[in-house]
C-alpha cells in the first residue's frame, strides 16, 4: 500500500508538469486552433536561461522570476514574428512552421549550451518528508505546490481581471471582440507569452528530475499532448485534470503492468493519444465541434 501511495504521489508530481505543459498547449489551441509542437522546446530553452542565470550567481527565485519574464517576452515575439504571418494558412503550413520552430530551438540550445547533460538545482530541501512509512521527496511536493499556485493564478487572472476577460473574448469570438475595441492580435500574442511562461515553470520543475539537455522535453511534450486530449483540448480545466490523471497512470502502469515497465512509457502515451482520438476525440471535458462544410 505504501509503495502504491508513493507511486501516486510521484505520479502527481510529474502529472503537475504534464498539466502545466498541457495547459500551455490548450491556451494556444483555444485562441487559434493551433497546436504548438514547439511548446516543449521553448520550455527547454527557458530552462537553459534559468540555468545560466543560476550559474551566474543569482539566487534561485530571482532567476526563476527573470526566466518567467524572458519566456513571456520570447513567447510574444514568436507569435508576432513567426506565427502571425501564417495564422490563417492551411493546417499543413502551420504544422510545418511549428516543427521548424521545434527544430530551431532544439538546435539553438545544442549550439549555445552543448548537448552535454547538466544537473539543474532544485529550490526545495533535499531531505525527504516521511508521512508514516511513506517517503516523499520534497521536490515532488514542491513541484506539485508550484504547479497548483500557477494554475490558481491563471484561473484568477482569466476569471477576475478585465484583461483576462478580453483574452477569453478574443479567443471565443474574434470579430465581435474587435468590434468592442479589443485588440485581438495582441491578445493572441499575450496568450503566447503566458503559455511560454507556464511552459518555463514546467521546464524548471522537471529539469532537476530528468536533467537538463536539449531533448529533455520530448517525452514530456508527448504526455502533455495525451493529457490535453484526454481532458479535451478545448478545456483548460480538462487539461489540468488530464495532466494529473496521465501522470498517475504512467507511474502506476510502469510499476504494476509487468510487460510495459519503464521501457515503453512513450508507447503508453501513444496508445492514450490514439485511443482518445479514435474513441472520444473531444476528451472528457471538451466540447464537440460541429463543422459546416
Amino acid at each position, binding site marked *: 500500500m505504501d509503495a502504491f501511495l508513493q507511486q501516486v504521489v510521484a505520479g502527481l508530481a510529474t502529472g503537475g508538469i504534464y498539466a502545466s505543459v498541457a495547459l500551455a498547449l490548450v491556451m494556444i489551441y483555444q485562441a487559434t*486552433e493551433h497546436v504548438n509542437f514547439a511548446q516543449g522546446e521553448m520550455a527547454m530553452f527557458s530552462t537553459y536561461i534559468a540555468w545560466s542565470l543560476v550559474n551566474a550567481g543569482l539566487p534561485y527565485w530571482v532567476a526563476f522570476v527573470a526566466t518567467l519574464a524572458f519566456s513571456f517576452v520570447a513567447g510574444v515575439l514568436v507569435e508576432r514574428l513567426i506565427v502571425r*504571418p501564417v495564422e490563417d494558412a492551411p493546417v499543413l503550413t502551420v504544422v510545418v512552421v511549428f*516543427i521548424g520552430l521545434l*527544430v530551431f530551438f532544439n*538546435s539553438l540550445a545544442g549550439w549555445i549550451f552543448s*548537448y552535454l547533460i547538466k544537473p539543474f538545482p532544485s529550490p526545495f530541501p533535499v531531505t525527504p518528508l516521511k508521512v508514516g512509512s511513506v517517503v516523499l521527496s520534497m521536490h515532488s511536493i514542491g513541484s506539485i505546490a508550484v504547479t497548483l499556485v500557477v494554475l490558481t493564478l491563471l484561473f484568477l487572472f482569466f476569471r477576475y481581471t478585465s484583461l483576462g476577460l478580453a483574452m477569453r473574448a478574443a479567443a471565443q469570438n474574434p470579430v465581435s471582440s474587435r468590434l468592442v475595441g479589443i485588440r485581438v492580435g495582441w491578445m493572441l500574442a499575450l496568450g503566447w507569452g503566458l503559455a511560454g511562461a507556464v511552459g518555463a515553470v514546467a521546464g524548471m520543475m522537471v529539469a532537476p528530475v530528468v536533467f537538463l539537455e536539449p531533448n529533455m522535453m520530448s*517525452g514530456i511534450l*508527448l504526455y502533455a499532448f495525451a493529457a490535453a486530449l484526454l481532458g479535451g483540448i478545448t478545456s483548460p480545466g480538462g487539461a489540468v485534470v488530464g495532466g494529473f490523471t496521465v501522470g498517475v497512470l504512467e507511474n502506476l502502469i510502469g510499476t504494476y503492468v509487468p510487460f510495459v515497465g519503464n521501457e515503453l512509457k*512513450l508507447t503508453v502515451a*501513444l496508445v492514450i493519444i490514439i485511443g482518445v482520438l479514435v474513441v472520444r476525440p473531444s476528451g472528457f471535458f471538451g466540447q464537440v465541434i460541429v463543422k459546416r462544410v
Partner: protein
Amino acid sequence: MDRTTASQGNPAAGAARGGLFARHGSALLLLAVIVLACAAPFLISNYRIFQLTLAFGYAVALLGLNMLTGYNGQISLGHGAFFAIGAYVTAVLIDKAGMHYALTIPIAGVVCLAVGFLFGLPALRLEGLYLALATFALGLAVPQLLKYKYIEEWTGGVQGIVLIKPNAPFGLPLNPDQWLYFVSLFVMLVMFWAGYNILRGRVGRAMVAIRDHHTAAETMGINTALYKSLTFGVSALYTGVAGALSAIAIQFVAPDSFNIFLSISFLVGVVVGGLASIGGAVFGALFIVFIPNIAEGISKAAPWAIYGVMLILCMYVLPTGVMGLARIGMYRLRARRLRGKRA
C-alpha cells in the same frame, strides 16, 4: 492548400513549333540525368558513392511521404516508423533467416503496406492537426518499441544488427559500394516510374481531389475512406522499401537511428523539394544527405538549425519548394521565348 497544388499546366504549349529539345525536352533531360547517374560511381570516391546510395533510398521515402502529405493532404510526422520497420524487416530476414538481400526489399515493402494500411484505418477519423499529433507520437515512440525486451531476440535490442556488405554478383567488375549504388539507383527508378504512373492517372487525381475538398470528392463518387487508407499503405510501402535500401547500404540497424528527427528530416526533404511534386523528392533527398555533411563543420547543431530555418522560410517564400521554383522559371522562360517569336 491551393498554392501547393501541382499545377498541371500545359507543358506542350508551343512545342509543336520547337525543335527536338522543345518537343522531348523533359524526357531528354531525364535521360541525361540517368546517364550521368550511371557514370558517376566511376568518377567519385567510395564515400561519395555511399552518400548518393543513401540519397536514392531517401528519395524513395520522400516520394512516399509526398504521396501522403503533398498529394493526399494527410500530415505524417512519424514516417520514420515505417522506415524503421522496413529496415528491421530486411535486417532480421538477412541476419536470422539467411535470406538474400534482394528478396528482402519487396518483403519489407509488403510488410509496411500492411502496417501502414492498418495505421491508416484509425487515422481516417483524424483530420489534419490530430493526424499530425498521432503520427508525431508514433515517431517519438519508435526507438522505445524497437528496444523492447521481448523482441530483443530478433532485433538485437540497443545493440541493433550488423550486416555484411554484399559483393557484386556474376563477377561484375564493381566494388561493393558501386554495386549497392546501382541496386539503389535501380530500385529508385522502378519506384519512381510506378509512382509517376499512380499519381498522374485516375488514382492520383482522386488523391488530389480528396486533399482539396473532401466532401466534394466524395460527392464525385470517390471512396474517400478506401483511398485515404490505401494512400497511407502505399506511402508506408515506399518508405519501407527505402528503409530496406538504407539497411543494406549502411549494413547496420539500431533503434536510436530511427528517432523523431529522422521523421522530421523526411518532412524537411519533402517541403524543401516541393510538396506534390515527384522530382522534388530527389532534390529533397540530396538536400537532407549533403547539407548536414557540409554544415557539420560549423557545429554539430548547425544542420538542424538550417533545417529549422528552411522549414519556416519555405513556408513563407517558397511553398512549392525547389521544384515549384523551377517550374515557375520554366514557364517564364517559355513565355519569353514565345513573345520573342511573335515580335
